[in-house]
């Protein structure tokens, strides 16, 4: 029987400290309040927000490729992947493309503003489970580089320790839309193989023009000992994953990041169903072999 007769006022900063509150009164759809501690315009329509909890004790307990649900108060909530690396000190970063009402509100929010955060949610890239000596091919299209950024940073560190090469293949719409250009340069300087292609060139662009799969053909990785991580438009992932498998990479070691409408992120709302999967619970990152390979082929699923 319920013994609740009084209103449960939650100043969210004290929520986790307040052990006397019965946990059953706290909805999993209620976010923590975070503060925008930093804001950086990446390229035209992408902004990176650095978020910190009011206590300053921002949790970095997430895994590469996981996402948070971010609330722009009064507008709504949206799933955004974490673009910083786990364990890194300071605020956690989310890189957001301005494509809808909520992402627009987040992109224009000023430093100091309050946003809601729930998470982290979802499966991860699994790079901590890679055996020594395994090379990693990372294929990203557009904003798909955001959930891979933290992983690549740590893969570059892993390479420095002599535990495996890193190949990063990035597709962007145009040279002006290349996300995290400074990071790409730093990874390249650190010894990662970084290549970038664009859909449409521009004056001064001397790099390749075309789809990412064309860069995979020439990338000097050894498929027998490679794993692959890919995130981007579904059609890009479909062709990239198949190209990697055709090169000889084990399809079970190719991971893709699925996307569906997500509203609760905890397997309750049903929106993110993709055939047998609840993408928030069973994904977003799933193996290509045996899972995404089949789902990519099913129309309107």
């Amino acid at each position: 029987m319920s013994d609740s007769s009084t209103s449960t006022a939650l100043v969210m900063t004290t929520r986790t400290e307040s052990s006397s509150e019965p946990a059953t009164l706290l909805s999993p759809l209620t976010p923590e309040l975070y503060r925008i501690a930093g804001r950086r315009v990446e390229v035209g329509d992408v902004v990176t927000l650095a978020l910190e909890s009011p206590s300053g004790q921002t949790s970095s307990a997430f895994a590469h490729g996981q996402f948070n649900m971010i609330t722009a108060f009064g507008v709504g909530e949206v799933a955004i992947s974490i673009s910083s690396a786990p364990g890194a000190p300071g605020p956690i970063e989310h890189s957001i493309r301005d494509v809808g009402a909520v992402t627009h509100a987040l992109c224009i929010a000023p430093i100091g503003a309050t946003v809601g955060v729930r998470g982290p949610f979802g499966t991860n890239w699994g790079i901590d489970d890679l055996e020594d000596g395994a090379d990693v091919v990372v294929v990203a299209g557009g904003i798909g580089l955001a959930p891979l950024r933290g992983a690549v940073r740590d893969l570059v560190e892993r390479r420095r320790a002599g535990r495996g090469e890193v190949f990063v293949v990035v597709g962007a719409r145009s040279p002006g839309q290349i996300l995290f250009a400074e990071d790409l340069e730093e990874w390249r300087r650190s010894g990662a193989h970084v290549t970038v292609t664009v859909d449409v060139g521009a004056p001064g662009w001397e790099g390749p023009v075309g789809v990412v799969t064309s860069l995979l053909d020439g990338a000097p990785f050894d498929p027998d000992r490679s794993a692959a991580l890919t995130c981007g438009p579904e059609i890009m992932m479909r062709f990239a994953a198949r190209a990697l498998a055709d090169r000889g990479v084990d399809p079970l070691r190719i991971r893709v990041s699925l996307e569906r409408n997500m509203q609760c992120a905890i397997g309750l709302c049903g929106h993110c169903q993709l055939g047998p999967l609840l993408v928030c619970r069973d994904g977003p990152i799933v193996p290509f072999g045996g899972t995404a390979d089949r789902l990519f082929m099913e129309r309107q699923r």
Partner: protein
Amino acid sequence: MDVGDEAVIDRGGLDALIAGLRSTGFRTMGPVARNGAIVLGEVAWSGDLPLGWRDHQEPGRYRLEQNQSPELFRWAVGPASWKSEFFSPEEVVWRTSTSDGQVTLTEPDEPAGPIAIIGARPCELTALEVLDRVLRGGDVPDNRYAARRDDAFVLVAECGTPAGTCFCTSMGTGPSAGTGYDLALTELVESEHRFYAQVGSAAGAEVLAQVSHRPVTTDDRSARQAVLARAEAQMGRSLDTEGLPGLLARNLEHPRWEEVAERCLSCGNCTLVCPTCFCSDIKDVSDISGAVERQRRWASCFDLEHSYLHGGPVRPTTASRYRQWLTHKLSTWWDQFGESGCVGCGRCIAWCPVSIDLTEEAAAIRATDGAVAAGEGRTS
């Protein structure tokens, strides 16, 4: 009195049982005949139950008629399901208030008093257990749903009069009570009007012990068996579940999806009456003062917006949305939750305005397993 015990009570005993539950703070809710349908309402005594009413259900058709029968449970299921009492069609998750620049989120209170269900059908209790697996069985449970279910008292009424749309025997959910109830009653009318009671929990034992009851006789036992046998014999429909999840999973391009889409209005009635459909929209709403409310509301996979992704809906056609609904109920629910999402209550058949019958749709696909619509099927 213990779990597994049986006894017989009369209508006065049922009234005492309801009164006993009410005296300990329960809101006693049950089936009531209202506006031409059996829906859920407050049941303060047995006279609030659908006395003498019976239902007639066929695809796209639901009618009630009343006669002089003393029976309270001579009907199958109405359009309302117990889902709505535990998982609200519409609820506020939290509200904001702001003072001195400090945003505070407040979660609303629960309504006072736990629910006592007076007369859920066995298929309906199974439906609640299916919902349990979804809404409280995962890593992050819906805390409100879980608390309401924990607190609830469940009295099941075994089924003696299935409708033309019923197929619980195919799904293994009725007409007899399975598990998970506090008390199960079987209404018996031959020779005397009485209820065969089975105790399913300590709470049920406690409630039953407090009302006037007598031991069951051989006659009572055979009368109950006769009621259940009659119910099984009168089951209006059947669904062949043999290999059904796999059958549907391999027929995603079957021409039947386009054919049913010619009839389907994509209205979502089936999802609203379904006792296990659990989809919800989560929307933030603000008012002119700047206060914000997060609302959660039942949603339907037949809505175009349900699958919206930047750029448009993933399932833009009625065929894709009907396929999503049917394959989820009968196939991918097994992948997601390890069981069927359909309990065989037949509501979706009766309340479909164009009489679409999921048992018929599944049978049509089975009859032409492997058919592929012209021009469909990807090769690359």
